């Protein structure tokens, strides 16, 4: 290998695309060439420097929050254009790339001419579709917009036809699962959310379900829904560190005191060492003295010594019973 070859490999290394064989070849060359060896070490040092930047991985909580916000934004979006199965071949992007200009054969031109005359005749002679066809039943219609039409005295209404469908089966059915996940994150109907979360509970350990439950726990406006989500996530506390981290956030941030207490109780179910770590932190960091007191009580039940700072905020008061007040 020449020094020029080695330079090319060093550029590949710098791009992060060097293979093991490239490195072996470089090493063999560098063993006998001090200039290339120095350049090689410099490249490796650079890559080590770049690797020092390690942004924290996306947490389940951040992802759940993003999904919840996206779900709300999508609900406010008008229905997207639906893709049709057929399109003008001459207007497809691939055809335009291939030919630059569409080729109009006499047959196409004749077809368009006939279609144009036919359309004109239909517009003139046929009864108006909007005015002539029976109005759909009110329950099936969602009006999207009402605006004046081009002709005087006429109006244009854009509406969606909603077709009700039913599906039943086990909650493990993928289609049902999608619908349940959707229903669980629609704050407009808390009752439906509760039913959906209850149906999803056996699958709480599966990723999309867990994400939806975490989203509901951290972002749903209804405390009952948040509590239902917390209860569904409770069996995961022992095994899932992400769930424990979200519960700690709930303890610190949830506006409902009952839910904060439930989150403390759930965290106490974590493996003893980890529960101790979180409870010790929360017993100091929480701004709610009742939360701090409950953390201390939970630590005592686990035979763990609470930190001295936790006692500073409240003198020897008895630990409260673990009853929860729900809003």
């Amino acid at each position, binding site marked *: 290998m020449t020094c020029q070859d080695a330079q090319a490999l060093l*550029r590949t290394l*710098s*791009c*992060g*695309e060097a293979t093991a064989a490239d490195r072996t070849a470089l090493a063999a060359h560098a063993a006998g060439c001090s200039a290339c060896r120095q350049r090689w*070490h*410099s490249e*490796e*040092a*650079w890559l*080590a*420097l*770049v*690797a*020092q*930047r*390690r*942004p*924290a*991985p*996306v*947490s389940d909580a*951040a*992802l759940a*929050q*993003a*999904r919840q*916000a*996206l*779900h709300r*934004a*999508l609900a406010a*979006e008008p*229905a*997207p*254009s*639906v*893709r049709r199965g057929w399109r003008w071949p001459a207007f497809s*992007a*691939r055809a335009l790339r291939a030919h630059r200009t569409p080729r109009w054969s006499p047959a196409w031109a004749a077809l368009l001419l006939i279609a144009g005359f036919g359309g004109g005749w239909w517009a003139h002679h046929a009864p108006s579709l909007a005015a002539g066809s029976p109005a759909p039943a009110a329950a099936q219609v969602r009006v999207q917009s009402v605006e004046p039409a081009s002709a005087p005295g006429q109006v244009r209404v854009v509406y969606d036809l909603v077709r009700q469908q039913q599906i039943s089966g086990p909650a493990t059915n993928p289609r049902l699962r*999608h*619908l349940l*996940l*959707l229903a669980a994150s629609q704050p407009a109907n808390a009752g439906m959310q509760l039913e959906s979360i209850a149906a999803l509970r056996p699958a709480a350990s599966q*990723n*999309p379900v867990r*994400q939806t439950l975490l989203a509901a726990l951290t972002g749903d406006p209804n405390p009952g829904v948040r509590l239902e989500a917390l209860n569904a996530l409770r069996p995961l506390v022992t095994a899932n*560190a992400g769930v424990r*981290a979200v519960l*700690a*956030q709930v303890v*610190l941030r949830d506006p409902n005191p009952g839910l904060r207490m439930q989150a403390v109780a759930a965290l106490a179910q974590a493996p003893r060492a*980890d529960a101790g*770590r*979180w409870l*010790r*932190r929360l017993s100091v*960091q929480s701004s709610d003295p009742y939360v701090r007191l409950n953390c201390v009580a939970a630590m005592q039940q686990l035979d763990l010594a609470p930190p001295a700072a936790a006692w500073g905020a409240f003198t020897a008061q008895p630990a409260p019973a673990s009853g929860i007040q729900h809003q």
Partner: protein
Amino acid sequence: MDSTSAQDTDAARLRADTTALIRAAQAGDPAAFEALVCQFDRGVLQLARRLAATEQDAQEIYQETFLKAYRALHRFRFECAFSTWLYRIAANTNLDYLRRRAVRKELPASACGEDGAAPLPDPADRAPGANPEQLLLSGEIAARLEAALDGLNPRERLVFELKHYEGMKLKAIGDILATSEETAKNSLFRATRKLRAALADLHAAAPALASLRPEPGTMPEEV
């Protein structure tokens, strides 16, 4: 069945599932679109968080990316992988953001949490065996790198992030940016040259710091 063929089978099944979901979403099924989101959104959010100054900005980029994808889904014609198409939208959304940010000259607030308060540190964040001085030094280097990255132009920044932190091949980056592999490589070289110049004083210390890389997924003995 050996592990390679099992992986191939899993990959084929995933591709088939994704295709079915895309077709259902194109037919107007919102649940199918949300299922697609769940397949790809961690990477989209990860990229946005690396480029955005704040968590809120990252969440906005994430949302804008998927709303654009939702509105344009009917135009997806399976001429490339769905992930490439989606990342192309994400890349453009991130580029728009970086251009706006360059105009506004915002200061990064990477140390702040979602609501501006310091985030609650996770006990799993620390590397086992790393001493505080090493962690501090490593943190300072990361901060210098962050500042130097902010000095790149948006396109160079995006290419550098996709290459070194998303681990993408230059060919894939070229596809995402609707350009050639060679152009992506040139952007990467320009970015590297600028960064190396900005961080010349740190360069010599880098080999010793390579040993600081933590093993993910481990818990410390004590908080």
